[in-house]
């Protein structure tokens, strides 16, 4: 007997949602009994706590991909540096990649620790107006593996939002791990206490990346997360010696440009490969500051400006509505 198998792939409604244990997708899940027996709906006291803590955050941007190794953390770090160049703006960078936290190294903050005060955990400051939080700061050694299942990761993400004293923040940037799983569901759920301006989705030109990114775009649509736009990293390489341009990761199916056209999503920009980017990240320096003449710097700056404009416009629209 041969029968075609297909899965009902409605996503998990969330262990604290009103549908927990009761949705179609819960059938066969080993957690179903626990979820169905638990209290329905998110804890209102918890939601109120998060709302209070995040009240002073004006704009929140999530940096997502679906695919690993495309430059999410690199982009998050540079977005933070770019926005903080305006000394009148307060910028916060939150790294919720629990297993592979790259932000401490990229921001030159390896070895830093988190201090507690009466008002909560203090972020680690790169500049006076740029604060950072990551699980990396909580490890005794940078090589310690954080081998946690979903629920424990969710707990730490909640703590990052509830217990960190961010103060007044103009831009909260959240760097995420690859995938569409616990961390992503949780951050969207917890941040519904405040509002998220939108998501920036990072990719590289090849189809193997795009196929994961399309899933991420669908995830955003499912959870009603606005998409600010897509950034295509590693988009071409210009040899500094002979000036010849090569496609190291050829866009065999049209790259991000074609995908954005097909899915009606804005393409924020394309950033070429520059070996200096990786070097700056390894050394914890801002690539934008170290290599101001690189075509990649120009691309990044244009993209950062578009994100700023989106957030400001969004804010104005919200104010009009209110």
């Amino acid at each position, binding site marked *: 007997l041969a029968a075609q198998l*297909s899965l009902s792939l409605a*996503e998990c409604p969330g262990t604290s949602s009103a549908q927990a244990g009761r949705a179609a997708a819960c059938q066969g899940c080993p957690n179903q009994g626990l979820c169905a027996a638990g209290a329905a709906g998110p804890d209102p006291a918890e939601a109120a706590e998060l709302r209070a803590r995040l009240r002073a955050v004006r704009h929140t941007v999530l940096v997502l991909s679906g*695919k690993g190794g495309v430059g999410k953390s690199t982009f998050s770090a540079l977005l933070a540096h770019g926005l903080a160049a305006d000394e009148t703006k307060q910028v916060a960078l939150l790294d919720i990649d629990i297993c592979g936290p790259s932000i401490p190294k990229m921001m030159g903050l390896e070895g830093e620790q988190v201090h507690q005060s009466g008002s909560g955990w203090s972020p680690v400051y790169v500049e006076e107006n740029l604060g950072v939080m990551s699980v990396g700061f909580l490890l005794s050694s940078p090589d310690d593996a954080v081998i946690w299942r979903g629920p424990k990761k969710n707990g730490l993400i909640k703590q990052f939002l509830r217990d960190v004293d961010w103060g007044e923040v103009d831009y909260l940037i959240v760097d995420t791990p690859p*995938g569409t*799983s*616990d961390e992503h569901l949780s951050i969207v759920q917890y941040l519904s206490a405040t509002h998220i301006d939108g998501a920036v989705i990072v990719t590289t030109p090849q189809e193997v990346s795009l196929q994961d990114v399309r*899933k991420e775009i669908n995830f955003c649509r499912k959870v009603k997360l606005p998409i600010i736009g897509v950034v295509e990293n590693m988009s071409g390489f210009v040899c500094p010696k002979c000036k010849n341009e090569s496609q190291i990761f050829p866009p065999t199916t049209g790259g991000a440009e074609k995908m954005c056209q097909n899915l009606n999503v804005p393409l924020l920009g394309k950033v070429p490969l520059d070996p200096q980017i990786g070097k700056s990240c390894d050394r914890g320096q801002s690539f934008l500051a170290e290599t101001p003449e690189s075509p990649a710097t120009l691309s990044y700056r244009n993209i950062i400006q578009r994100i700023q404009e989106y957030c400001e416009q969004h804010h104005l629209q919200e104010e009009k509505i209110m």
Partner: protein
Amino acid sequence: TLAERTNLAGVRHILLVLSGKGGVGKSTLSTELALALQNAGKRVGILDVDLCGPSIPRMLRVQDSAVHQCDSGWVPVFVGQDKAIALMSIGFLLERPDDAVVWRGPKKNALIKQFVTDVAWGDLDFLIVDTPPGTSDEHISTVEALRPYQLLGAILVTTPQ
């Protein structure tokens, strides 16, 4: 013994391909390794436990294939020259290729256990297990589920930076 009656009874060696970091070439290496071993006359299977970003089906040009059931369980998709590499991936179970698999840990764990125990792998010299980045649910569940069997070891993939 338990091993004699399970779907992994005929598998001689199981290899995990790991990284921690994303985008370094785990799936690429898993695919090339499988093809090279098959070319050298070995019987090979690939188990893709990257549930959110399954890359192997496209790399072997079988992204439009479907999985069928038989008496012993799920039949893997046969790919490569002579259709001799056995492959299982969540990619084959999606209604649409762009469907996002947005699952929390417990549901991922349940499917991984099924992939390990319910796929009729048959006789293989090597079963290569491709993993997603990180050290989380998928990795813990895969190692736990494979522990009773012939786990040869792990290959770790990185890039220079």
